[in-house]
């Protein structure tokens, strides 16, 4: 192979700047989408555990629709299709007046999709709690909101910290799909470095390393969360 290695290119401007800005965009995009996914996913997950069939069905439909369609297709749907389906003034606002429409569309696509995965985990976490816990809380006069607030959610979230770790990591990796609608996140910036310099190996090696650093950081942070929320006297946060 006749390839001119040049690792130095990565530390030269403007290419270093490209990569730094790519990391920033990836972080902001994934974290913003995660806030949306975690909040909405928690609400949907709780809805699925409520005795009211209608409420539970609404959440179930959401989950099935969102996880049944590939994430990449969601990016295209939200970016190209949805603005056309909305009332004209809303669509125009999305396409013309919303600052940074690619970024916010990516947040929506990534966040709304990941929400359905979080919802399933939250539901599983709550349903794994023995029924007696709910009975004990209800027997003491707690209403449904209090039972969730003080008993089911604290126990449910603890159970699912390990799977949430994996969802949290995945949202950083999935954010790379945003390049398809023009968000200049890490993968897009690596491509840009390559197209300017023809040093594709170096550019994508850099992107790879940066992704690994990000996901390892997530792992370390979530392990801290797991340890801090561990219940004394139980073998692991998974059991009750």
């Amino acid at each position, binding site marked *: 192979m006749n390839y001119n290695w040049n690792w130095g290119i990565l530390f030269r401007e403007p290419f270093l700047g490209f990569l730094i800005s790519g990391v920033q965009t990836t972080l902001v995009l994934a974290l913003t989408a995660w806030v949306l996914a975690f909040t909405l996913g928690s609400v949907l997950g709780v809805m699925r555990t409520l005795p009211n069939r209608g409420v539970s069905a609404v959440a179930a439909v959401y989950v099935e629709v969102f996880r049944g369609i590939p994430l990449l297709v969601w990016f295209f749907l939200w970016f190209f299709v949805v603005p056309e389906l909305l009332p004209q003034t809303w669509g125009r606002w999305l396409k013309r007046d919303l600052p940074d429409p690619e970024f916010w569309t990516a947040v929506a696509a990534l966040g709304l999709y990941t929400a359905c995965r979080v919802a399933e985990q939250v539901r599983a976490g709550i349903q794994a709690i*023995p029924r007696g816990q709910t009975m004990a809380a209800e027997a003491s006069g*707690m*209403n449904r909101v209090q039972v969730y607030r*003080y008993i089911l959610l604290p126990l449910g979230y603890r159970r699912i910290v390990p799977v949430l770790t994996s969802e949290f990591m995945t949202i950083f990796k999935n954010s790379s799909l945003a390049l398809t609608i023009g968000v200049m996140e890490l993968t897009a910036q690596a491509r840009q470095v390559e197209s300017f310099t023809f040093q594709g190996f170096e550019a994508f090696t850099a992107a790879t390393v940066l992704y690994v650093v990000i996901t390892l950081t997530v792992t370390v942070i979530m392990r801290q969360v797991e340890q801090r929320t561990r219940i004394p*006297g139980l073998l692991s946060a998974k059991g009750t």
Partner: protein
Amino acid sequence: MIEIDQIDKWYGAHQVLKSCSTAVAKGEVVVVCGPSGSGKSTLIKAVNGLEPIQGGRITVAGEVVGSTNLSRLRARIGMVFQSFELYPHRTVLDNVALAQMVVLKRSRADAVAKADGLLTRVGMIDHRMKFPGQLSGGQQQRVAIARALAMDPIAMLFDEPTSALDPEMINEVLDVMTELALEGMTMMVVTHEMGFARRVAHRVVFMDEGAIVEDRAKDAFFDHPDTDRARAFLSKILHH
């Protein structure tokens, strides 16, 4: 205090409670016994609405156990479960203080003072900062009794409180219950501990196949059971 009037309950086509009627007067201790699957636990859980009934009526302190007042009524009825059902993520102290604060709206200081008093009474004050998973079964059940008493209940329901305990721990729990009975607490106790029933109960309700077969004063029940089924049950449980 507790009036159970011809209640029926089905699981699908299977009738688990068949027109059961009994009553517990203020200050009375009623033991409910019978073979497993006879409906004892279902009966006692119906008293505070944890098991909905399909026919008949239950009143506690003159109020019908229904859907509108359920939380308020439950707050006044203490309940102790077979498998303790302490909240694993809360300390012993918090377990006893939580419902006082969120249901009765007591201040933290008041709730803690009350909790400490009750924990002293059940001999668990030295363990107040431990978590349930760090306690033995007998210790957990004593905390569960303190948790129920913290709500200043007008009556206490015990659903097989010693069935999940190792034999050497049964007495520490029965001692607390005996003391409570001697102080005049209104109690309904599902148990196989016939020694406890003989010492403490005023009346014994014997159930079989979802029906109340005998409902008599303690001595009458133990000395001259009316029915063959009760005789057979007693001979099995007493002579071994």
